Every structure is written in C-alpha cells, then in structure tokens.
C-alpha cells in the first residue's frame, strides 16, 4: 500500500465574525492516496471549500484561522511551513482550480503569460521562451484550438468553458501531485461541464495527479470519483468508496440527499423525499449530532453527544452516526 499523499487530521478552521465564531470546518480527518480521485460533497456552508482552501493555506486571515489539527502532505505538515515553503508548494505540488472561471483569471495579462508565469516560478532553470512554449503546449493539451495564437489572447476573449480549460492548464503546468478542484463545473452549462470533466479525468490519469473534487452535484461525484467524503455543517458525516456511498449509504444525511434529488433516469412522478428543515446556523450549532434536528432516525442520544466517524462494518465505509443504515 502506497504512502498517503495527503493526510488531514482533526482539522479545525474557524471564522471569527462579529456574529460569533463560525466553525466552518470542525475536526475533519481524511486521507488521500497518490493518484486517487476523492469527491467532497456537501451543500453550501458545509465546509467543503474551506477544507480545500485550508489545505492550500489560502484561508483569509483574518477573519478565518486554522485553529487546530494537521495537514500532512507527503508526510510533512503544511501548517508548519513558512510562507516561502508554502509558495514553493502551491502551484507546483498542489494546485487548485476555482468555481468561477470568469473571475479567476487576471484580466490584464494574456493567458499564455499566466501559464508561463507559473512555470517560471517553479522551474528555476527554464528560460522565458521555454516557459512560453510550455504554456502553448498546455493550452494545446487542454484542447484549446489554435493554441499558439490563442496564448496571446486575454481572458475576456475566451468563453467560460475555455477559461476553465486555461485554469486547468495553469494548474497542471508543473505536474502537481494533487489537484484541488473547487466546484470546477458549477458555473458551466451541462454540455460544457461534460467537456471539462472529461478533460480533467483524462489529464489527471495521464499526469497521475490525485484530484480532490469538491462539488454539490452527486452526479459529478458518481462519474468522476473513486472515494467520497460527505460533509455536513463542518463535519465529515460519511466517508466511503463511491459505489458504497450510492448503493449502501450509511448516514441518514447521505440517504436523505440521494432521495431528494431528481434523477434523469428516474421514472417521472416518483415523489421526492425532501430533507425536512434547514441546515443549522453555523454560529450556534447545537450540541450533539449536527444533523439531529433534521434526521428522521433521531434518538435522545443524538442530541447529547456528537458521533465520531467510525467504520460501519462494510469494508472501507465509515459514518458519523450512532444508528447508521
């Protein structure tokens, strides 16, 4: 068994706002193996993006702060690294692409420049021409037609899907070991989403890059990921290989999520079973299981103690629930 590429232990990322402390990520632990594709699923405010940004150490400080835990990347704790060591790591070993391709590229530089800049930053021995050639090569790789000419264009001259390809080119330009994709296709149309997902899948396999795919779309997870973490209110509530998540979900939240989404391959009219109520107020999460207020299987114990993530006895599947399915 290969060593872990990423190991997150008891990560706590809090935001100190005027309204109170938002425990956006509270005691989250998980691992990623080299080359693995991990899906992180959850609704807005569940802490999935904050988890990713914590791994990149891109949390805005203030108001955010990584309040505890460790993030081991290749065995080294990222939280102990100096700012210089961090910048060495970012973009070369770990890269990230973001949700909104329209605003994620700097409008005043050509896309070629923005790719070449990353290459120059991390490969000291590379000349400007070599960096530029690499940029064109990357644009070609993400299937931007006429890459040589398009490299000289500015971001506003590209469509949303094309810009997301450019972002992927930037992210993969230095062959990172880990690519964090934060809702990379949420802003895109479904046909463009298919293009981009296909591209990411192909390239990550080609480069041997591990991918952390953050999304709220269970369909995207089913099609692209090997392993899935389900997050709710700052906690991982279930963690399992993709098949088990969808076939034998253990946590009531995962079950609820799967029952509440309409499927294109369903028969029409089958009534959805929504999850009752609202997600909890992140400033005052009640004690006990954060899902207790909405859970159909809630017991007295759930309102008292918070369940830990533990194996449910079906191989590599664990859930944070006292009464898993």
């Amino acid at each position, binding site marked *: 068994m290969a060593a872990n590429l990423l190991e997150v232990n008891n990560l706590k990322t809090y935001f100190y706002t005027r309204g109170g402390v938002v425990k956006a990520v509270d005691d989250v632990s998980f691992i990623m193996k080299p080359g693995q594709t991990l899906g992180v699923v959850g609704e807005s405010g569940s802490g999935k993006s904050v988890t990713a940004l914590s791994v*990149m150490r*891109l949390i805005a400080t203030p108001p955010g702060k990584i309040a505890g835990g460790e993030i081991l990347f290749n065995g080294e704790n990222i939280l102990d690294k100096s*700012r*210089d060591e*961090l*910048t*060495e*790591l*970012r*973009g*070369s070993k770990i*890269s*990230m692409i*973001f949700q*909104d391709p329209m*605003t*994620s*590229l*700097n*409008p*005043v*530089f050509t896309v070629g420049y923005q790719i070449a*800049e*990353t290459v120059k*930053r*991390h490969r000291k021995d590379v000349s400007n021409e070599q960096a530029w050639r690499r940029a064109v090569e990357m644009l070609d790789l993400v299937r931007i037609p006429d890459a040589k000419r398009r490299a000289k264009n*500015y971001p*506003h*001259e590209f469509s949303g899907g094309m810009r997301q390809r450019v*972002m992927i080119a*930037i992210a993969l330009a230095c062959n990172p070991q880990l690519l964090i994709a934060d809702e990379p296709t949420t802003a895109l149309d479904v046909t463009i989403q298919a293009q981009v997902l296909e591209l990411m899948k192909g390239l990550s396999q080609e480069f041997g890059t591990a991918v952390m795919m953050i999304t709220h779309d269970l369909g995207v997870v089913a099609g692209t990921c090997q392993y899935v973490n389900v997050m709710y209110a700052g906690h991982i509530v279930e963690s399992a290989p993709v098949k088990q998540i969808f076939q034998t979900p253990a946590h009531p939240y995962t079950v609820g999520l799967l029952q509440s989404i309409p499927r294109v391959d369903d028969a029409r009219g089958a009534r959805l079973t929504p999850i009752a109520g609202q997600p909890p107020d992140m400033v005052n999460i009640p004690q006990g299981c954060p899902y207790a207020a909405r859970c159909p299987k809630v017991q007295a114990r759930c309102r008292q103690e918070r369940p830990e993530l533990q194996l449910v006895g079906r191989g590599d599947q664990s859930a944070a629930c006292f009464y898993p399915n």
Partner: protein
Amino acid sequence: MAQFLIKRLIGLVFVLVGVTFITFIIGYAAPGDPIQEMLGNHFNLAQYMRLKHSYGLDLPWYQQYFNYVFRLLRGDLGYSFQTVNRPVFAILQDGLPTSLELGLWGLLVQLIIGVPLGILAALKSGTWIDTLSMGLAIFLFAVPSFILASLFQVAIVYLHLSFGVDWPVSGWGNTWQYSPTDIQTKIGPIIIYAAIGLAYFARLTRTSTLEILRQDYIRTARAKGLKERIVIYRHAMRNALIPIITVLGVSLGFLVSGAFFTENVFNISGIGYITIQSIYTRDYPVIQATAVLLATAVVLGNLASDLLYTVVDPRIKVS
C-alpha cells in the same frame, strides 16, 4: 478602439461647444456696458460706437457667438477690455507657463505621494498605519486649500518670529527655474496645491487596492505559488491602477479649481490669478479665454486619461 476614441472626441467637441457657449452667454448677458465703463469719463458717442463696432458688440448675439467661436478656432482670443489694444493672448502667455509649472508639480506630488500612501494603507488595512494615513487623507480632503495656505503662512510667520527662520510666505520665484530660493519659494504652494488631490488619490488607491485584493484572480495568483510581492505588485497593482487612471481627468478639475485659490493666496500670477483679477475688473474677453483654456485643458486631460486607460486595460480594445 478607434471607434472608442472617435466617440470620445465627439464628446469633447460637444463639451467645448457647451463651454464656449456658457462663457459667451454669461459675458453677453452680464449687466453693464463694458465699452461705457472702458471710456469712463472720456465718453463720447462717436468713439463709443467705433469701439463697440471694433469689438463686434453691435451685432446680434448669435453672430457675436459665431464670430467668437471662429476667432477662437483661429487662435484669436480678442483684446482685453481693461488694457486697450492688449491681446488676450499676450495676457495668457504671461500666466500660462507659471500655471503649467504649478499644475505639473502638483499632479506629480499627488501621484507620487497619494498613490503609494493608498497602497500602503490598503496593505496594512486595519492597522494604525491605515488609520493614520486615511485620517490624514480625510483631513486634507476636508480642509479647503485657502485655509491650509493661511495656516502655512501663519506657521512661517511664527517660525520667523520665534526662530528667525527665513522662508518666503508667498510668490513663486522664477518660472521653470530652480535656484535654491526658487525651490524654497515653490515648495509651499505646490504642497498646499497638491493636498486635496493627494488625499483623493490616496483614498481612491486604497479602495481600489482593497477591492482588487478581494478578487478571485488574486487568489488564483496565490494558488499558483507566486510570491506575495509579485501577487501585489504585478497582479494587484496593474488592476488597481485602472480606476486611478480613469479619474486622472477628474483630478485635473481639482487642479484647475485649486489654481484659483493657491495662486490668489500666494500671489502667483498664473491663469487662476489672472481670471480672478479679470473678474474684479470685468474684463470679459480675458475671463472667457481663461475659462475656455481651462476647460480645454481638462477635456484634453480626460482624453489623455482615456488613452492611457486603453493601454492599461486590454478589455477596452475590443469593446
């Protein structure tokens, strides 16, 4: 982009027509008869008619206006009412170099101090540096330059009385010359003059820098592993400068308005001083000429900042 420029140019022509018309109408509608005043006690009808005709004041108003505009287009600004036979052009020629010098230094000081001050405040936002520099900016923005000038002069007088410091209280020295005395004389007016624009630029730069630092592409730049210095000076500054360039035109308005007060407080015989003097003496041709001149300067400044804008922001070129 050519279209953008042509569009701006058409706008400029419109503005200039508006400016000439306003200045003309104000002069035309002004009460009192300048020729009569000019003649004063030497009034005689024949001479009155002759002068009135030679100044073209006996024509209907629209003809006077067209004559005025056509003369303007030829660069002929007419003659002063105050000093008979003195071309307005010559009067302006006396004041212009001084005003230009003042304006140029003022703008330079505004940018060189204001912009870095704003960046600094933004980078240190929330710290005492931010509070202090923005406090200073608010103060400078709120205190009219004639008060600043007076305070400056009080301070000089006080320093002179208590410590025997010799520092010129007013004047400008020799235009475009920089002997130690000249420099000494010029420093005060320039700083007072630049104060309001400096404050404006500092606040604007701070706001726009903070805004840019919040953008997604700055996060991208950090995620690429760029050094913080590069993120700020290359990725953030290029973008933060765009709004600053767009308001350069507005700041020219400040410069022109400021000139009236600074030149009058310090007795600097530039365009602002000349304008106010002409207003006291009702020398309409001079007033009209300076108004048109200043408005043209602002309009050209706006055009220049538009041009610069297209250089800095690639998004302009296509739209």
